């Protein structure tokens, strides 16, 4: 199934929750989804017989200036089709529903996005830092991140 067909199906099912569709080259076509509906959309994408997106390839946290974004790359083992979903949330309150219940692989991906980008995944059962030490401060991949001077008495940058 092509990305625009998936978009049409989702549009009939979810209406306004599906915000936009973009297939301008050279970008991979992607579908913008309303942030608080992303769990329902993913649920439908995974379990609907037409879609069967059972494989979450990648989950990325993004810094978009004012907002943080999350990008989902989905793949179907059976039909071999792909789709890209995007959501945004304001940086002041970066809350995005977690899809960890749907794909177990999202567990670590979301912890990573939380650790490096500071996205708060709601409904994640164990949202703690994964790569940085547990007592690290700040989210290093944000564009406005300032490297601390010392960590446990060791100088960070020279």
């Amino acid at each position, binding site marked *: 199934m092509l990305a625009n067909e998936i978009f049409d199906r989702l549009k009939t099912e979810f209406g306004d929750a599906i915000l936009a569709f973009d297939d301008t080259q050279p970008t991979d076509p992607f579908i913008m989804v309303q942030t608080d509906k992303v769990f329902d959309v993913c649920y439908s994408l995974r379990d609907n017989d037409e879609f069967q997106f059972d494989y979450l390839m990648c989950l990325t946290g993004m810094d978009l200036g004012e907002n943080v974004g999350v990008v989902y790359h989905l793949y179907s083992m059976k039909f071999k089709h792909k789709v890209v979903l995007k959501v945004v949330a304001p940086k002041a309150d970066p809350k995005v529903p977690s899809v960890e219940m749907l794909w177990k692989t999202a567990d670590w991906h979301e912890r990573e996005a939380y650790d490096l980008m500071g996205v708060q995944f709601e409904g994640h059962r164990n949202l703690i830092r994964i790569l940085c030490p547990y007592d690290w401060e700040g989210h290093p991949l944000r564009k406005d991140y300032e490297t601390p001077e010392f960590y446990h008495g060791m100088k960070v*940058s020279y």
Partner: protein
Amino acid sequence: MGLLNKLDDPYEGGGIVLGKVEDLLNWGRSKSDWYLHFGLACCAIEFMAMNASHFDFMRFGTIPRTSPRQADFIMVTGTVTFKMADRIKVLYEQMAEPKYVISVGSCSNCGGPYWEHGYHVLKGVDRIIPVDVYIPGCPPRPEAFEEGMMLLQSKISKQAIFNKRKKLEAEL
């Protein structure tokens, strides 16, 4: 025979060798170093190749140990991150004296490729533990490991065991 060449043998053919006990001990120490392999990153893979066929690190008399308490020197191979730094310190402190450190690869020498923007990389393992031999390279070739090991051996064989303070003062 490195030790025997150094000593003069006045009783030629008598099977008697005169020399300093210190030299004998140092000779033994330098030719059988057991090491704690602290494999951290890419350099550790080169070190694995060094340990295997073709290069055979064990011909230097080294035996890999898994416990710091049995090791003479520690081989830090790879990138030291802040999360890891505390552990390296603990392991180093667990080793029995005399102990030595070989730092392998640009990363543990100075931060290497992660020098500039690595917010989570310690810029050189010598900022937490004293280092005796630095082996440069990213990753070092097995030949560089050999040279580093020989440097450590020559350092050990020159060390003072008795009257350490006197010798140090004389040097200064």
